[in-house]
C-alpha cells in the first residue's frame, strides 16, 4: 500500500514505489498533485502554456529520477524543487536571468466560451493582478507558505535559500501583498 490512509502519505512506501517506477503510483500522484503543482508553476512562469509543458516535464523527471527520492523529506517539497529547477532551466535557456525577471501572470483560455472566459477572468484576474505585481521571488514564497502550507524549512529546501532569507522574503512579500490588495480593493 502507498498510503496508510487516503490522506497520510507513507514516505517510505512512496520512495519504494518511485524506485520501481510503479505506474499506478505515478498515475495516483499526478491526479493528487495536479492542482497544487500547476498552480505553483503558473505562479512561477506566469503563462498557462508554459506551466502546462513544465507540468508534464516535472512528471517525466519524477519518473526518471524517482530513485533519488529517499522519503526522508516531504514528497511535495521534492516535487516543487524539481518544478522550480525546470523553470530556472527554461529561463536560463530563454535569457540568462533569474526568477526575478518573470512577469505578471497572463492567463489565456484553453477553449472556453466567451462567457465562461469572462467569468473566470473576473474571478482569477483580480487575485492574479495583485499577485502578479509582486516580484517572483516574493510571490513564490507566499504561495508556498500560504497556499501550499509548507513549513519554513521545507520552503528553504525548495527555493534553495537559507532560512533567514526565506523569512525576509515572506515578511516583505506579505507587506507588498497587503498593499497591492488594499489598492486593488480600493480601485
Amino acid at each position, binding site marked *: 500500500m502507498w498510503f496508510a490512509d487516503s490522506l497520510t502519505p507513507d514516505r517510505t512506501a512512496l520512495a519504494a514505489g518511485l524506485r520501481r*517506477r510503479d*505506474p499506478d503510483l*505515478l*498515475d495516483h500522484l*499526478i*491526479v493528487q498533485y*495536479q*492542482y497544487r503543482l*500547476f*498552480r505553483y508553476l*503558473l505562479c512561477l512562469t506566469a503563462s*498557462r502554456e508554459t506551466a*502546462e509543458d513544465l*507540468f*508534464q516535464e516535472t*512528471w*517525466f523527471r519524477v*519518473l*526518471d529520477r524517482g530513485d533519488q527520492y529517499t522519503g526522508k523529506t516531504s514528497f511535495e517539497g521534492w516535487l516543487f524543487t524539481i518544478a522550480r529547477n525546470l523553470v530556472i532551466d527554461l529561463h536560463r535557456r530563454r535569457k540568462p536571468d533569474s526568477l526575478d525577471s518573470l512577469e505578471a501572470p497572463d492567463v489565456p483560455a*484553453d*477553449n472556453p466560451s466567451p462567457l465562461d472566459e469572462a467569468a*473566470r477572468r473576473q*474571478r*482569477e484576474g483580480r*487575485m*492574479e493582478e*495583485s*499577485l502578479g505585481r509582486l516580484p517572483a521571488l516574493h510571490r513564490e514564497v*507566499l*504561495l508556498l*507558505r*500560504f*497556499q501550499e502550507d509548507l513549513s*519554513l524549512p521545507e520552503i528553504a529546501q525548495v527555493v534553495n535559500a537559507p532560512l533567514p532569507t526565506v*523569512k525576509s522574503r*515572506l*515578511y516583505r512579500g*506579505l*507587506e507588498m*501583498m*497587503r498593499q497591492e*490588495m*488594499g489598492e486593488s480593493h480600493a480601485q
Partner: protein
Amino acid sequence: MRNDDHARARHLIDCEAVEGLERDDREWLDRHLESCDACSAAALATERAIARLRLAPVTLPLDLAARTQYRVGLRAQEALPRRQTWALWVSVVLSWILGIVSAPLVWRGFEWAGRYAGVPSVWLKLVFGLWWALPAGLAAAIWAMENRKIEEQ
C-alpha cells in the same frame, strides 16, 4: 500609547502569519489589538490578504492529469527496453572478459578431453570456437529480436 507599541504590534501581526507567535507575544498582541483600532484594522487586512491568497482559484487545463498520465506511461514503456538492453550489453561485455581470461584454462581442458576420447584436433578447435562465440551469438540474437519487437510496437 507609544509609537513603539504600534510598530511591535505590526511586526507581531506579520510574525504570527509567517512563523507563529510565542504565548507571551500572542497575549500582548491580543491586548493591544483590543485597544488600538489602527493595528486591529492592519491585522484584519493581513488576515484578508492571506485568505484571498489561500482561496485564489486556478482553472486547470482540460484533461491535464489524463494527458500527463498518458505521456508519462508512454515514456515509462520506452525506457523499459532501453534499460533491458543496457543490462544485456553489460552481461555480454562481462562474459567476453571472463571468456578471454579463462580461455587458456578451458583449452587445456578441451585438449585433455580430446586426448582421452580420441577426438581429432580439428573438431576440438571447432567446438572450442563455438563455446567461445556462443554467448555473444545468443546476445546478438536476443538483441535483434528485441529491436524487432520495439519496431513492431
